[in-house]
């Protein structure tokens, strides 16, 4: 395959491209779905193809195909060149990339147990054990689901800068969802674990702790109250902080959104964007779900400090955004598959730890809300308005957690919220393995934070 990719890149240059990239993508994976004690479906899939990207006459062209014959790849190259040429006279963003030193390397992440060496029957047995711990937790448990997924992703990036990089990354994800019920009241609890890993990740799961915790949440939420609504001091746990740092702030620092005029911090480089207690980091080198060694433009990934002591110090870059904004590409461009061009993405994003304990953070709050666990979040980057939906919450009264709350969401303006951070804990956890969507592309990421305190946040609720 590498020879064929090199041939396509050479032909692209000969045909007049100033930059040409051919990227092979293959993802092979297995799934198991357990529902109420029955492993009712097992699945397998192969995603495979090549994406070709060119710059011709100062414009980007891209084409992809699942058909891996020489003829089909040459057609894709012709389509990509034709696509770029079709835009040559159109007003728009000029395509450019920064010149970087080429990389030639092959990376295989080592695993202790290859999931392909574990039989489907053995995997089913393990998932049934995990599911059972949730099902037997309480009579209030109505439905239990456990899903398992192992996936091996191979990417080969070949481009006209001379880069030829191959990286194969194994990942495992296990997710448990529990529905509890009392009369007409139904609630949901969930837990998930996922990382760049072999099957050993499953072997480390303690069912009572993992799915038992999901069941406990679902059952306890039956007795939780609707939240108050209005403006409160809130304390976020590592998952809510992780959701916030990723959704509300991180997306604003993606170089393509910055040069595309979609970010609220495009003119804030070197300026204060947060309380001086706040530092924000995106680190693909950490062995978490968003880990990789080379990005999908073949650039070796480094740890990125985005905000240092409240001051914006860098953006995340692709070859393109680094060229347009004068930054240094440090490996932040990734693509969901061969069908998409690489765009700027976060990896493992987190608030750096401070020095306080949770008790110290809570102690002088007269009335506030403690937010725990994340459901989902989204941001309108151009306006800087965020929404985060959390799993559960507690009222804080005189420094103590009191009334249990459910269906809580918070909303606000990102920069106002960050300037109103008044406490940062020392208990950093990066435990939010997931897939982040942007421009129709889903990418493996992780996020986290220590416990943090924000003043003046809108809490939505029914009360």
């Amino acid at each position, binding site marked *: 395959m590498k020879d064929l990719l090199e041939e396509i890149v050479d032909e692209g240059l000969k045909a007049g491209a100033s930059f040409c990239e051919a990227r092979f993508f293959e993802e092979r994976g297995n799934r198991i779905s357990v529902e109420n004690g*029955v492993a009712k*479906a097992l699945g397998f899939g192969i995603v495979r193809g090549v994406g070709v990207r060119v710059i011709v006459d100062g414009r980007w062209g891209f084409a992809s195909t699942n058909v891996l014959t020489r003829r089909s790849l040459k057609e894709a190259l012709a389509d*990509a060149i034709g696509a770029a040429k*079709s835009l040559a006279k159109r007003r728009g*963003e000029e395509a450019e990339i920064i010149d970087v030193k080429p990389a030639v390397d092959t990376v295989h992440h080592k695993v202790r147990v290859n999931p392909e060496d574990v039989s489907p*029957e053995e995997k089913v047995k393990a998932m049934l054990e995990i599911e059972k711990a949730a099902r037997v937790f309480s009579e209030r448990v109505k*439905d239990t689901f456990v899903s398992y997924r192992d996936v091996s992703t191979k990417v080969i990036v070949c481009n006209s800068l001379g880069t030829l990089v191959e990286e194969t990354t194994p990942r495992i994800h296990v997710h448990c969802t529990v529905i509890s019920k009392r009369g007409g009241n139904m609630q949901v609890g969930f837990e998930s674990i996922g990382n760049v890993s072999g099957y050993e990740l499953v072997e480390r799961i303690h069912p009572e702790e993992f799915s038992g915790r999901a069941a406990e949440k679902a059952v306890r939420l039956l007795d939780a109250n609707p939240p108050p609504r209005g403006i409160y001091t809130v304390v976020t746990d590592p998952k809510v902080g992780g959701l916030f740092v990723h959704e509300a702030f991180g997306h604003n620092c993606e170089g393509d959104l910055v040069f595309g005029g*979609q970010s609220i911090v495009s003119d804030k480089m070197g300026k204060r964007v947060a309380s001086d207690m706040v530092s924000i980091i995106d680190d693909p080198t950490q062995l978490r779900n968003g880990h990789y060694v080379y990005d999908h433009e073949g650039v070796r990934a480094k740890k990125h400090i985005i905000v240092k002591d409240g001051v914006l110090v860098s953006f995340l870059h692709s070859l393109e955004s680094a060229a347009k904004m004068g930054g240094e590409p440090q490996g932040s461009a990734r693509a969901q598959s061969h069908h998409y*061009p690489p765009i700027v993405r976060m990896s493992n994003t987190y608030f750096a730890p401070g020095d306080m304990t949770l008790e110290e953070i809570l102690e002088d709050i007269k009335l506030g809300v403690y937010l725990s666990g994340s459901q989902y979040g989204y941001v309108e980057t151009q306006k800087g308005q965020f929404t985060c939906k959390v799993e559960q919450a507690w009222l804080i009264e005189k420094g103590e957690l009191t009334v249990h709350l459910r269906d809580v969401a918070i909303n606000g303006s990102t920069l106002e919220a960050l300037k109103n951070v008044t406490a940062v804990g020392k208990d950093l956890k990066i435990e939010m393995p997931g897939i982040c969507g942007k421009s129709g592309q889903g990418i493996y990421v992780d996020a986290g934070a220590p416990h943090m305190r924000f003043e003046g946040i809108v809490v939505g609720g029914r009360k």
Partner: protein
Amino acid sequence: MAERIDLATPAEKAARLLSAMNMDFFDVYVVYSRSLSIGVLGRGIRDAKSRIDLGLGVRAYKNRGLGVAFSQSLEPEDVEETVDRAVSFARAAQPDPYFKGIPGPSKAEDVPGLCDKEIICLTLEEAGELVKRMIDAAEEVRHGAMYRGGMTVGYSRSYLLTSTGISVEMEKTSVSAFIEPTYRRGDDVGSSYEYDYAVSLAEIDFEAIGRKAAEKALEQFGSRRVKSGALPIILTPDSTSSFISGLMLAISGESAVKKRTFASRFLGKQIAPQILEIVDDGTIPGAIASSPYDGEGVPRRLTKVVGEGRILTFLHNSYSAGIAGVETTGHARRDYRGYVGAGPTNVRVKPGDSSLEEMISETRKGVLVTNASLIPNMVSGEFSSTIDEGFLIEGGEKKHPVKNLMVGGQILEMYRNIELISKEGRTIGKGFFFPSIKISRVKLAGG
């Protein structure tokens, strides 16, 4: 862009292999698709893309256990591996007590107008010109926005083959366009978006999309916080779409019949005033969500889902219908990755006798919601969402845009509190229709 890739040969090869493996049921689904897209970012057009996708998916059942497998390669050895995996997984899976079998063949009426030659013949140059017209129209309203958006045209052809004798081939085209201009005035931001999608290119007015998006974006300047309280809200058609989609999801398929959604216990029961009527119709000629057959080869049909405020039926595939002990309603959804779900097609809310203008003028104090995601927690029905774009209404008049305002509550209470439905509304893709809806009282959390 619609070259003839042979789908029948790999599908029949997979079916032959499966037939020899003593499965109880199986189906094979192969899809070829091609799309062209133009991306917009910043000052204008950023890139042009072309994509060919191809995939084969297999569902195999043995002793009520399901094995699914797919491959994006139709090379003989990959088809063989896909079949082998599906078969070995079906044998390793445990019996699903709810599984009753897969549908047999039945003949559907033709649904005309689902394939637009103009889309099939469109070049990227021509697509670029259409997007340019969309941007130019926005620039004419106000010069100098930064944009995000684009357009995609696509053609797809699918082939379904089952062990029960179904053999169905379908093809379809689609076009979608959207643009999101952002204007800045100091620290103030005016941003919004407009979109459209359809089966045929001729149905999309690119200039109108650009113009409306820019006008809506400019209206968003000067947004202000609104105090918390309980007020009436008026949903414009784009917000009604989200409000009704939550209900349609909650009455679809396995989750609905296994009593896992907020709507599960309301089959046959009143959930809204009598003025609410919703139909689902997958047979509308030329409509975006129409097709002769669903994902399991069952003919599409017109289904009255909500009548006089009462939920009349759930939307079924064969699996959920089997659990409920009814016939499938032809709402199976699938791609070639194998799993089959259920969901609505063209959703149409019956127009009422009010109008958006009347709703606003008769509201002393309330909020006009022009863009919000009102999808609740599917299990509990509770929700808490941001009003992404909306306006305060005071004294019967639309005032300033709102900011950082959340709406929350129980979605069932929102349906119960429907007060007025407008006679006019928005038709999307020749199929969907959403009017404006006034809800008498909703809890709002603001500044």
